[in-house]
């Protein structure tokens, strides 16, 4: 249970970081 919860939290964090970094870097590259 602990490992699965850790995995879920880590992946939610990764998705959040990915969206923010994706938007920021897209506008940085195409800006």
């Amino acid at each position: 249970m602990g490992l699965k919860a850790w995995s879920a939290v880590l992946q939610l964090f990764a998705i959040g970081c990915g969206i923010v970094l994706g938007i920021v870097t897209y506008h940085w590259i195409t800006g």
Partner: protein
Amino acid sequence: MSALGVRALLQRSAATFLGLTGVTIALTWMFLAMRSVMAIGGSCAEGGPYEISTPCPHGVSMVMLLGIFGGLIATGVYAALGLRAGPQLTPLVWSALFLSLGWNFLDSGLHPPDDAGPVAGWLICAGLFAVMGGAPVVGLLVVPSFARQTLWSEDRPARRIIGRTAAAPTAGEPENRPASRPPAPPPPPPPPADDLATALRTMSELHDQGKLTDDEYAAAKRRLLED
């Protein structure tokens, strides 16, 4: 937890975080790059010896290429090297890609940049992408085992983790032998007819050699046949 276990957990966690972050960045890039191309009519060109009527927005070509190949690599890192427990979102990467791009087709098909009314071709693409991207989502809803494996997977055997920490099967040992397989039955005893025939042949030879009298041979033979 042993030092090796902590190290493997850290490696797996890093692969999960970097892989999934990379996948999400790639999907975000693809979504935004497609929107910028749809906003100028749905097609553009860059480079080459020809006169280009609609040049691509600055940097979009590079973002598309990096998004495609970077997304594939990041998906591979996430799927092959990431944590084995908890969400296993690889099938949903497909859904995220096609549903997000399908949304762009739907949005642009209903509200095209030239305000000329709905564009049938883009709406057909939107439907096609919705079907392709929606298939794993439908699977999540109707197949409980697939949903459990995708959203809340159990930890898998240690030998599948980096470095094969568990003992590998020895030579000749099948890797997936069922645990409750019954032992092979012992070979059946030879049929008694062979013993009887051998005994009768021996008796006959002894009788022929004169070591048994006629009466003794007849009595022994009768005893053998009665047994």
